[in-house]
């Protein structure tokens, strides 16, 4: 817990945010009588997320926790909170709304649907804690890993994935469960779990980083190719081809994210050739990568190639990127504005247009446009941009940041929000 605990009529609350990256942000604010904050006075709710104890593996003994400042008055105060900061007792299931949610699969589904991914992870802890491996629990594990990776809880994922080895333990095959599907052979591991297993090293340098991930991914490619060579009935063949494509897209993403843009572009080109129905999104991705390395010329050539296949909105987005690469922010802004006209729901065009306004020196207009986008999406990346602009505008950006905090916590899916993006 934090070490500050001063108490006056103006109390000092020290909140630390973050999961893996612990950014020390100390915050002092005046609360209460000076009217700076609306009634009721803010309370700091301590959320303790313990790394689950899993039967199947060793859990990371580090306890991860974070505290946040919230202004929801109807949240009950955690034990020992109002007189400074104390540690909440370890709880293995924690629901941010402080209602007890009973352990059930329909509630789990509900949590995922509401975007309460951290609660879902915690509930999965309970569900998987005493369960043994079977056809059902492997699917729960798949969900768990998907959520852990999304929440960037990589060390937990790494520890737990380790017990799955190379996804060829004997209890991962149908033959191990003769009662369930008699006579059926093959692996019970869902394809999504394989994808997650293969990309995980990229996020965990201790298990190999980029090369570890490429090893695993190309190992999977090999097996898929073997299956295709062996010959399969049409439906299954299509499914294998679909798997291979999703895998290669992941490989291209891993390469691009690690600075190997050229190989990523080459791979995307191959994907485009073998899956012509993906030619538009893949070409768009290639164009952006070309711009990233400064090869505007090739980006333009590729755009000219796919021009006829683009919708008007897609073309305007592409034109916007091209003009940003050429440094023509005014024209780029026009294109993004037209994209928003064609599709008012295109938040990305709105964001990109707002970025152009900044480069044109129109800080006020840029902020207004970002604030408009915030009404439709509270994506951390968007908020990150907006907070940067608040800080550029004024030294007194804190109240604006708290407004954002309010907006975030008024939604249901804030529990996994990376609040550090607000730089409070």
């Amino acid at each position, binding site marked *: 817990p934090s070490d500050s605990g001063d108490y006056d009529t103006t109390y000092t609350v020290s909140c630390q945010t973050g999961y893996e990256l612990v950014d020390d942000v100390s915050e002092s604010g005046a609360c209460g009588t000076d009217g700076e904050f609306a009634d009721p006075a803010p309370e700091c709710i301590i959320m303790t997320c313990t790394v689950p104890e899993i039967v199947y593996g060793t859990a990371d003994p580090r306890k991860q926790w974070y505290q946040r400042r919230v202004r929801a008055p109807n949240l009950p105060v955690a034990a020992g909170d109002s007189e400074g900061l104390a540690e909440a007792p370890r709880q293995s299931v924690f629901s941010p709304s402080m209602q007890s949610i009973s352990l059930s699969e329909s509630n789990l589904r509900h949590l995922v649907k509401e975007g309460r991914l951290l609660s879902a992870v915690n509930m999965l802890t309970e569900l998987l804690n005493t369960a043994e491996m079977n056809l059902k629990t492997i699917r729960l594990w798949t969900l768990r890993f998907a959520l852990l990776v999304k929440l960037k809880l990589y060390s937990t994922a790494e520890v737990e994935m380790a017990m799955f080895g190379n996804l060829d333990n004997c209890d991962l095959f149908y033959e191990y469960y003769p009662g369930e599907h008699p006579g059926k052979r093959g692996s019970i591991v869902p394809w999504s779990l394989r994808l997650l297993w293969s990309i995980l090293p990229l996020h965990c340098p201790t298990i190999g980083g980029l090369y570890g991930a490429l090893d695993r991914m190309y190992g999977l490619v090999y097996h898929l190719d073997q299956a295709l060579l062996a010959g399969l009935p049409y439906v299954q063949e299509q499914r294998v081809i679909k798997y291979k494509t999703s895998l290669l897209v992941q490989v291209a993403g891993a390469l691009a994210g690690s600075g190997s843009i050229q190989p990523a572009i080459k791979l995307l080109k191959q994907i485009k050739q073998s899956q012509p129905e993906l030619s538009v999104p893949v070409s768009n991705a290639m164009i952006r990568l070309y711009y990233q390395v400064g090869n505007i010329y090739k980006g333009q050539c590729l755009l000219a190639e796919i021009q006829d296949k683009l919708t008007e909105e897609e073309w305007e987005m592409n034109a916007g990127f091209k003009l940003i690469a050429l440094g023509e922010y005014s024209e780029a802004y026009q294109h993004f504005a037209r994209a928003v006209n064609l599709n008012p729901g295109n938040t990305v065009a709105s964001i990109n247009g707002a970025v152009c306004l900044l480069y044109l020196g129109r800080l006020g207009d840029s902020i207004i446009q970002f604030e408009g986008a915030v009404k439709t999406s509270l994506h951390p990346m968007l908020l990150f941009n907006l907070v940067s602009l608040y800080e550029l505008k004024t*030294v007194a950006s804190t109240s604006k940041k708290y407004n954002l905090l309010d907006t975030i916590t008024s939604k249901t899916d804030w529990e996994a929000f990376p609040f550090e993006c607000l730089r409070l």
Partner: protein
Amino acid sequence: MEANPASSGGHALSLRVMRLTKPAIVPNWPLLADKKDYCGEELIGQRDKDITTIPKIHNFPYGEVLTVPQNFGSIYLGETFSSFVNVQNESQQTVRDVVLKTDLQTSSQRMPLSNPTGQAMVSKLVPGENISEVINHEVKELGGQLLVCTVSYINTSGEKLMFRKYFKFQVLKPLDVRTKFFTTQDDEIFLEAQITNTTPHALHMQKVVLAPSPLYTATDLNFLGNGESIFGESDYINPDDTWQYLYKLTPKMTQDEKSNVKGVSSVGKLDIMWLSNFGEKGRLQSSQLQRLIQPQGELVVTVQSIPHFISSNEQFQVVLRLRNTTDRKYNLHLTLRQLPDSGLVWVGDIKKVVGEVPPCSFLDINLDILPVKSGVWDLGEIGIENLVTSKRFDYPSVGQILVGLT
């Protein structure tokens, strides 16, 4: 790059700066979702709500969302330094005659970047209002540099107040350029330029051109016949990689002028233009590249004609060109010397008068040789005496020939 984040030091106005490197696309790994999985539909719902997810290629992490620059980053020689400067009235009072002036201080000079005369930008600024500027400057000096922002204003009491903020940054070297000259026997000159990328990101070379000096014409040898670059599919130089560019230089002088040129000759300049992140431009010109010309000597002997291949015991002829590079008449006498153990034997007179060679002119002579052994052999020693000055020139090896078996 921020000003002191605490209150503006008692001033009514605050100054904040953001370096405008190009916007970036930040990778964002989306939620992996498939409708066949447990809670698949719900996961797909969450994934699609994420604005950074790309339709159809869902697990690609580079979406379309741009982000504004987050930190100063590095700046390299030849790039353009671009910054957003914002002055905000943080107080509750209106101020008047606000002046914002920016200068750049390098190790050698101080130059204004904006508002050099220090004019007032606005006559009044109400609370909450701001003035801002985007300044651009092409960086032409290496090393530490200082951005100096000066703000002055008149407050409600009529006082004229001023404050200054300094932002230090370092200009680094983006490229390492090394040049090498190669001269062939036929007096063709080649220039090899090795360009190393010393930045941590990829650089797309837009143009690497040799702008020759008036003494030469340059041929760019970095393209194939069909216009394709010799670097093929490679789009960019990776960090720490080196690319070699080749140019052929042809002196614009006649043979006579050539023979008089000695010392250092200016060949030209390399003009390099590159693009990096999202089209960030950079441009550098090398200094004049110099080439050291070896003096040719008064009498230049070259082999004009020699068979490519000869068999043993097959007599052949060699044509030697004796060039007089001076402005005086030469009268030459030739002595041919046999090399010990050589496979070649001179045929005919080994001491003879060659004759007159006028100034700045040449004379060709035929020499006969009989090869007796196979192998690669030097033609043999040639001694030439100028009967006019009694000066002797010795040419130990003017050429070689491969002699095959009979």
